[in-house]
């Protein structure tokens, strides 16, 4: 039987952390299978192919590019566009590329203030300002952080911070088999994490949230729905597919898989979910419960500030 030709793939990072790369390496022995079926044309963490070689490739030469990380510098914009041109399909890999991710929280501040903090105000900086070199130029940064689809046309999304290797493998298997999902597909479950959570049976039909507790000071049970114990858990509004990793470590969900299909603003959905758990009609009483949540903006938009309604405007050159 004639062996089918290998697919060509590329993997690249923008303002990422290397965690998505690690999640690929965590494919373990499947990596050996993978290189039988795929040529990896570009992957800076593991292979010595430089930008010039990428630039020299014909357009649409790469079948599948996986790009992780938030778009945070002008270089990232250039690289995202270059990879888009060289690739037939682009998959946003991980929360940062998918929704803006944790570095997207920098969208609360101007680029200048981010740079100033690190290079002019840090308490460990050299005391003597006359011998201290100036800060790098904040103009190298984009005006604000962006998710990948705000910069280039994006075909598929692998959610999670980082995406579990099993989910990457399922995407790779379908790509290798030539079974391409519908454009815009977010891999993972179509249901919320709650539906597959190991504590789902302990969740009562009606939760009445009266007091918000915080993990570090709460003596909570690992065997009972966290929301029912007053601990904020994002399970009801977060896409499933993460194997409930945090829950299994007795910690509540923080929402890295992002929203379900057809939800445009994850944080707004989270607020509405929590409000529905407060069995009060008096707005003052509802507010008094919500007010107990420390740093609600940082919590609800931890992974998705960049793609939220308040920050959604597009990129301008």
């Amino acid at each position, binding site marked *: 039987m004639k062996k089918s030709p290998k697919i060509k793939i590329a993997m690249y*990072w923008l303002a990422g952390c290397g965690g998505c790369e690690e999640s690929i390496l965590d494919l373990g022995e499947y990596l*050996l299978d993978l290189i039988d079926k795929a040529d990896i044309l570009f992957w*800076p*963490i593991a292979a*010595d192919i*430089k930008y010039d070689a990428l630039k020299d490739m014909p357009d649409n030469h790469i079948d599948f590019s996986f790009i992780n990380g938030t778009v945070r510098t002008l270089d990232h914009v250039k690289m995202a566009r270059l990879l888009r041109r060289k690739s037939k399909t682009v998959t946003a890999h991980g929360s940062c590329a998918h929704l803006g991710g944790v570095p997207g929280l920098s969208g609360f501040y101007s680029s200048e203030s981010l740079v100033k903090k690190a290079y002019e105000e840090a308490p460990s900086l050299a005391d003597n300002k006359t011998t201290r070199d100036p800060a790098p130029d904040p103009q190298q940064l984009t005006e604000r952080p962006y998710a990948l689809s705000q910069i280039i046309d994006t075909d598929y999304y692998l959610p999670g911070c980082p995406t579990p290797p099993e989910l990457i493998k399922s995407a790779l298997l379908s790509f290798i088999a030539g079974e391409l999902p519908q454009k815009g597909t977010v891999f993972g479950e179509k249901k919320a994490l709650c539906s597959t959570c190991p504590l789902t049976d302990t969740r009562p039909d009606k939760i009445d949230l009266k007091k918000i507790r915080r993990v*570090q000071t709460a003596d909570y049970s690992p065997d009972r729905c966290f929301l029912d114990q007053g601990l904020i858990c994002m399970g009801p509004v977060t896409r499933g597919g993460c194997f409930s990793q945090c829950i299994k470590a007795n*910690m509540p969900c923080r929402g890295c898989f992002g929203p379900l299909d057809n939800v445009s603003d994850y944080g707004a959905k989270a607020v509405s979910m929590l409000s529905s758990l407060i069995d009060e009609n008096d707005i003052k009483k509802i507010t008094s419960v919500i007010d107990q949540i420390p740093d609600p903006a*940082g919590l609800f938009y931890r992974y998705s500030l960049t793609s939220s309604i308040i920050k959604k405007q597009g990129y301008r050159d």
Partner: protein
Amino acid sequence: MSRIIKIDPITRLEGHGNIKIEYDDNGVFKAAYLNIPDFRGFEKFCEGRAVEELPTLTQKICGVCPTAHHIAGVKALDDMFNVSPPPAARSIRELIHNIFIYEDHLLHFYYLGGPDLFLDPDTPAADRNIFKVIEKLGKETGGRILKIRKKVRDMHSDISGSALYPVCGLPGGVSKPVSEKDRLRFCGISKEALDFALETLDLFHERILKNPVFISLLDQECMKSKTYYMGMVDESDRVNFYDGIIKVIDSKGKEFCRFSPNEYLEHISEQNDPGSFMKYTFLKKVGWKGIEYEEFSGIYRVGPLARFNVSSGFSTPLAHKEYLRMKDYFKGYPVHATFAYHWARLIEILYAAENMVRLTSSPCLSDKNIRNIPGRINRERGAGVCEAPRGILIHDYEGDRNGIAGKINLIVATQNNGASIQYSLTKAGRELFKNGLSDENTLNKLEMVFRAYDPCMACSTH
């Protein structure tokens, strides 16, 4: 005419970077300059967050060394809440930290640095990768590398939630106990990991330490940097990854100072580089004299070679035996050969595996008491320090009475090596490029210099 050659991007490391090699008007090599073009602003955007989220937020600085950030973060919270973990929780934290250092050092030895060490020096760029290393070592050994790394990372995930991003750390403890059944299973995996560490060292002695190319890299003067060294040691001056006192020696091996982690601002200072987002740290009491004058400037090194140099060895027998072997090989002390980082890293693989066996062999690990639950924040500031695979890592947080984070300051492992990496590149470059050659293999030799440090660039700029 002066000219610049750019290696862009540098590869087989964590994060972004490029190197500019400058020649003067006469075509003579002038300098090699490493630029890190990446910045996210963690110290600013972590302000205002709930303090309990900091160990899981700040660890997103780096997906290659998340456990180190998680441990430093949770230790900073211990300090802030003025609470200590019960013995089982401390053992669990130490266990995941050792598992992580084990697999991360393996990652460097085989995947990132491996192609430089195992493959012929003239291997084409397209073939310098882990898959060719596996081919060279044979599928049996190669498969075992992938398998053991997966096994120990899965064990980490079982304990912490995820080896990719652990979530188990709470001030005063951890969120999940280890069952007795799991403890015994983990002990079996740890013993397997120790066997593989020994096998890896055999491979190093047989294949690499007998290779004349590698031996010359250890010997050549241009591949040495005579700096200060900094590392964390226990009360007997032995290496400790989780806790201890920070010790500094000078380039002659004489103790320069030692300090407790929360005194770091008196000893460590940072210098900006307007051309790069990486700040360089230096010893405050020596001062910043630029990158040129290694013996007289406050440049110091951290990580495996620094830990080897500052310590009196290791508390576990096999690692200590290997420590003595390396000490014997180099005769002189401290060891300044940058390529000796590879060997020192392997001693630590052994040390981490021995620690894994030790911790999983004790019933203390499966004790159910894993939390001392704190009350409100006790101190307005908390500092947490640990040894990351790449060196000293400091997290310093402010928090108010409502548990909201104020100012955050982070000194990240690779930053400590930043100035020294710059220095090593220029020093090696003078020799490598003295004939004006800039072919692909010579350029890779220069990359091998920074790679020996196993830098983490996203970490370094955060």
